[in-house]
């Protein structure tokens, strides 16, 4: 791809970006949210039309014409997106052959045999006749890749494929990627996980603000430098945060206490408390029940038992509105499903929770809403064309900032952040972590959940450890080390 330009109304998303992918390499495409990664990929796959520039394939002199995703597919460019775009109610084999105009779909027996052949070839542990929804997300993703491989793809684009996988699943996926690399497929790998880049990639291309920063061979670019390139400044922000670690243990006053709290989401009853100005967190593997715990606190799931006290006073919380009225705010794990209201503007998304608290008959005036919107767009440095822009057209990190702003606008005493940094770039991650600590220093209590343990160690002064849907330990002070956390999660102490 040479000299690619793409402009959207009000934004120049790509300005003269070059990108080269060789046969049989895994090439990481890195950059902050809004750097232009997705746009570049969408241009390559024909979702967007470029304003300027050329795309060359196979070293041909003539530029390739890619005007629709169909064109891209015919040229051997396939994409596997973060969200699975297959049909969960069909079988694995049907998913592999559907929509390809092949006659196979009418011959079930042959179709299943062929599909099984490909799956075994690639070492994917799935059966052709299995219903796709019975497979784990990782397998579903691999099926999508298998489909691409069978279509003779030369360029495979993986857009954030690992964000909803656990470690062993990621390993499996990497195995498949290496295998494909050996077969000569060029892979473009978009991710936010630095570790994964260094584990599996050969080259890195860094974008920033729609411009090319550079292309690097992986050995030549140490991690710190990569982060610096992405952010565009030499920063050791990570270190900065670490130093502040011990401060946020909170006062003596309990803001929230729960005793034997239980919900219908299948977690064991648990006890929990948080003090004023404290930052703590739930940790554990994916599916250990950490999200379910905070959902129970906010009444996002149906609470089936237990006692709750706010500032020492017993309260009855039955639905999210009750929790909100008691000064609890909850930033949900799944931004798309539980967070944003996609078609509404950034402004409406910002004021939503505060508006609900204020009441049905007291709508914010246009001026008030605009004031809030301007204030929070500035405060959180949300990148948006205007407050009227539908939130769904923002990048993931900026959407998350809007949702964060929504809850800050309700002036909560107790803020729960469930995976606030998932799928967003490192710069925004650091901003959010800093913000959490700043809020805590101003007296807000924060519960912070993240899949990345260092992030939790950096921000939290106390960690509740979960395993198999129950609380198995609590760590604070000296025990807050990576090793100790792992040990507790794995259950080393218990035996």
């Amino acid at each position, binding site marked *: 791809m040479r000299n690619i330009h793409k402009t959207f109304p009000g934004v120049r998303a790509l300005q003269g970006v070059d990108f080269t992918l060789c046969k049989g390499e895994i090439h990481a495409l890195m950059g902050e949210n809004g750097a232009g990664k997705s746009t570049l990929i969408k241009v390559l796959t024909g979702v967007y039309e470029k304003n300027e520039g050329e795309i060359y394939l196979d070293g041909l002199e003539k530029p390739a014409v890619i005007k629709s995703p169909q064109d891209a597919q015919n040229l051997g460019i396939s994409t596997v997106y973060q969200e699975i775009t297959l049909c969960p109610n069909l079988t694995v084999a049907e998913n592999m052959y559907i929509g390809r105009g092949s006659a196979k779909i009418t011959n079930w027996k042959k179709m299943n045999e062929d599909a099984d052949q490909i799956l075994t070839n690639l070492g994917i542990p799935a059966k052709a006749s299995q219903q796709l929804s019975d497979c784990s997300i990782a397998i579903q993703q691999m099926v999508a890749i298998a489909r691409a491989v069978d279509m003779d793809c030369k360029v495979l684009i993986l857009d954030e494929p690992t964000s909803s996988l656990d470690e062993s699943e990621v390993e499996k996926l990497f195995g498949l990627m290496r295998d494909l690399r050996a077969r000569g497929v060029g892979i473009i790998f978009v991710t936010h996980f630095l570790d994964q880049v260094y584990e599996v990639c050969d080259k890195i291309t860094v974008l920033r603000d729609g411009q090319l920063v550079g292309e690097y061979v992986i050995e030549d670019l140490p991690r710190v430098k990569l982060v610096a390139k992405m952010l565009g400044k030499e920063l050791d922000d990570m270190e900065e945060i670490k130093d502040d670690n011990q401060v946020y243990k909170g006062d003596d006053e309990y803001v929230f206490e729960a005793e034997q709290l239980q919900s219908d989401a299948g977690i064991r009853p648990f006890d929990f408390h948080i003090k004023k100005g404290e930052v703590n967190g739930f940790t554990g593997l994916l599916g250990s029940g950490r999200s379910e715990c905070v959902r129970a606190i906010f009444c996002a799931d149906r609470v089936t038992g237990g006692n709750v006290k706010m500032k020492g006073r017993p309260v009855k919380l039955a639905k999210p509105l009750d929790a909100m009225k008691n000064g609890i705010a909850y930033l949900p794990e799944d931004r798309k*499903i539980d*967070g944003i209201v996609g*078609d509404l503007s950034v402004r*409406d998304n910002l004021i939503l929770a505060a508006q609900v608290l204020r009441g*049905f008959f007291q709508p914010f005036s246009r001026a008030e809403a*605009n004031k809030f919107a301007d204030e929070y767009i500035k405060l959180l440095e949300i990148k948006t064309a*205007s407050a*009227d822009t539908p939130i769904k057209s923002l990048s993931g990190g900026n959407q998350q900032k809007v949702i964060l702003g929504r809850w800050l606008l309700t002036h909560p005493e107790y803020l729960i952040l469930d995976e606030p940094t998932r799928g967003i770039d490192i710069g925004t991650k650091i901003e959010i972590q800093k913000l959490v600590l700043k809020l805590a220093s101003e007296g807000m209590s924060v519960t912070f959940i993240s899949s990345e343990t260092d992030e939790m160690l950096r921000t939290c002064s106390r960690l509740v450890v979960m395993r198999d849907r129950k609380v198995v330990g609590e760590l604070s002070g000296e025990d807050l080390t990576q090793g100790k956390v792992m040990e507790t999660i794995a259950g080393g102490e218990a035996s």
Partner: protein
Amino acid sequence: MTKKKMVFASRQIFIPIAALLLLALFNLAVDPSFFKITLGRNSAGDPVLTGYLMTILDYGSEVAILAIGMTLVTAACGGQDISVGAAVAIAGSVILRVLVGIGGDGTLQAPIIVGFLAACVVAMLFGAFNGVLVAIFNIQPMVATLILYTAGRSIAAWINNNELPIVTDKTFTYFGGFIPGIPIPTPFFLAVICIAITLLALRFTTLGLYTQAVGINASSSRLNGLNPVFIKWLSFVILGLCVAVVGLIKTSRLSTINYSVIAKDIEMDAILAVALGGNVLSGGKFNIMASIVGAYVIQFLTTTLYKFNVSSDALPAYKAVVVILLVVLSAPAIKDKLMGMVKKQKGVG
């Protein structure tokens, strides 16, 4: 920023207004007498304005009133209520039952307002029934309202013991006709009142924001403290209120009721009005004014076709052709293409 907003709003309302102008131009070209309005006197000797435009204003208002409720239901639930016509029959039947009663001699046995309020209560109850099916039991709106669509007219007949009560009191005819001394049809005023109340409600409550939020993402709305079930249910109750008003107009026009014909297929016109207004039929963002303009466009079309002596049997077919054109033109894919073409033209020129 406000200017941008206006441009955006005008874009959604652009389609129905353009359709309205197109129809008007067509009539102007073919027969300008379409626009003639004459001041005459009706049988009671009161001054009335007559003409095709008055007919449109008169009958379009029924659809416009229903389009208000239908827009809200569409936005909140992502589906449509097809039982509206049957519910109008029920509301009308209740009015007659309260005003005249079974076996009555046609004189009023209760003030008209009491009859109307009774109809409001009953229509809202039936709306609530639909709302429970959709909001609590999560049945698709069209399927859920199919029940009342099928049963409604029988229920209406049963309310009056299958009799056809006739109201002889003259004041009752005002609602579907003319108030003495005012030459403009009353349904238009009723529509204006309904629209005004709706706009005030949207301005001074958060109904609009809540409805859109629930329609776009119910799960997220719940976590923001909203009650999506209640808001979906509420939209059906509001539609019930609109139904009661139309029930009053419809029975007032005839001074009686014909259970199988009254408000027949009006739900389709109301749904079309919502679609013509550029509202997404799968829920979410809405624009009430665009729906209302859409309602009058549909009546404009019907009246135009009547004027060309299209028989009432063939009418739906002709209407369908025009509607296909309008809806295809307002489909996002085509709209984007057209916008692109306009832009290109501008770029060249």
